């Protein structure tokens, strides 16, 4: 849970139901490094372990903030597959090729990874491709 900002700043607006009213910020479609990503989710929910606050700013540098939650979950699952050292290095090959290699070497990669990759709308290469 985020520490309650209203408690730290004396004499501010009375407690309102959502942070939105407090900050009154408009969503800009061309924000380059928007630090205030917390407006995406209602703060009344407990912050999930991999919250959006930890996402690097570059991910949303190209335009609108991504609101499709199911897409995000798929990316997170694939991200964990990328980082899992048991399946070998992730750089330099597509996720599909890496999954097939894991299958070929007998490492039993989870089948849900392949189904997510087949569904499409996810990155074909790992997060670090082209950046490292």
């Amino acid at each position, binding site marked *: 849970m985020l520490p309650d900002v209203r408690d730290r700043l004396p004499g501010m607006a009375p407690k309102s139901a959502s942070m939105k009213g407090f900050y009154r910020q408009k969503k800009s479609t061309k924000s380059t490094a928007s630090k205030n990503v917390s407006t995406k989710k209602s703060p009344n929910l407990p912050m999930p372990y991999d919250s959006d606050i930890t996402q690097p700013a570059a991910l949303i540098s190209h335009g609108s903030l991504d609101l499709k939650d199911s897409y995000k979950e798929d990316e997170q699952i694939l991200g964990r597959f990328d980082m899992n050292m048991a399946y*070998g*290095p992730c750089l*330099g*090959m597509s996720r599909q090729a890496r999954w*097939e290699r894991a299958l*070929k*070497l007998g490492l039993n990669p989870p089948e849900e990874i392949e189904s997510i990759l087949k569904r499409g709308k996810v990155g074909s290469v790992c997060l670090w491709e082209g950046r490292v």
Partner: protein
Amino acid sequence: MAAMEIDSPTKIPRKQAAYRSLDEPFEIQKDIYRGQQYSQIYSARLHLLRTLMHSLVPTWKPHFPVCNILGLEEGSECVVVGTLYKHMELKPSVLDEYSKERSVIPIARPDNFMHESDYLVLEDESGRIKLGGSLLSPSVYVTGVVVALLGRETDAGDFHVEDALEVGLPPQLEMPLKSGEDKYVVLISGLHVGRAASNPLESQLLIDHITGHLGDQQVQGMAAQIVHLVIAGNSVEIPRGILNKQNLASTDYSRLSEPIKELDMMLTEIAAGLTLDIMPGSNDPTNFSLPQKPLNRCLFPSSAAYNTFRSCPNPHCFEIDGVKFLGTSGQNIHDLEKYSEAKDKLEFMERTLKWRHLAPTAPNTLGCYPFTDRDPFLIESCPHVYFVGNQDKYETRLMKGSEGQLVRLICVPKFCETGVAVMVNTNNLECRTLSFNASFSS
């Protein structure tokens, strides 16, 4: 001396043998380079060999747990499987040019980079740990070998090795039953056609003997038992000095292509008589990194017209009448020589078989294609004949494995320097030399 009968009534037919190429793992046409690094090939190598090790470790040390390097606990004995890395002080590094000290590191010998301060490190995907203890001698091992080690982590942070296990020779298919027919495969390497010091008379003698144009009936009968010829690398020597020139005149172009044309003419004579495999070597016009692609058929316009002519990759693997041959043009053993020591070249070859890997130093010090999902140099099944070309002298030994495997190890010498070719009998794995000498006595 009896006159040679020119019109001999009996024709001596050449013996035939069934040939099967097993070069598919060494082809890189289907692989596309996507910017990957060498970590992929090391990861594939470790996974494949570690799976094998995990099946051997329970019989070797049944009472000890197996863990990965990050899971090691100080003081507790366990078995770890990983890839060795040898830290060598004298190993040439491109970063030495940029080092600020500018001190000249004295190199004792330019062809061997060993030093008494070399030490071994074991690595897997979780971490690495320095190896201590006196069991593993750094002069024997090289970077890239996968081993299983029993030991414990000391408080100094290194792993004290108590026992070590190599993968061992791969399983071998039974040799076909002795048919009673002696059939020979001739191995030559290092023709170096185009080199000023090479003697074309000796290679012509070789060709004439193999194709049966020399000698009397008895000698021709022996030549008729030769079923196959393999040329293991470095067949041509292109004058490199010309390529460094700024402007090439038309005479330069013809001088560049002369050695290849001469080789083509020689190969045409051979291909007309028997099947022939030509492998590329370190000096041949093909790619540098292993596995080397077969020499292009355009280089051999007249011999490639024969279906007996076969251009093969390096390393090369094939079967003649069920006898499996595996060989390289020498780069793997030459690299092992630079980074480790053994009493003779055959011992290096034995080690590569025991480590089940043709070229463990690839890609560390030996150029290699960055494969992503496989390591083609892993030896899956044990060959019956294992040959290495371009060596200084002819050596051979029959190696016996722990499960009854029998391998004929052959070091094929450079023909242009020694005039020696090797004949292997596929019936009983016996090995002989054919020596040609055409020097003029002064």
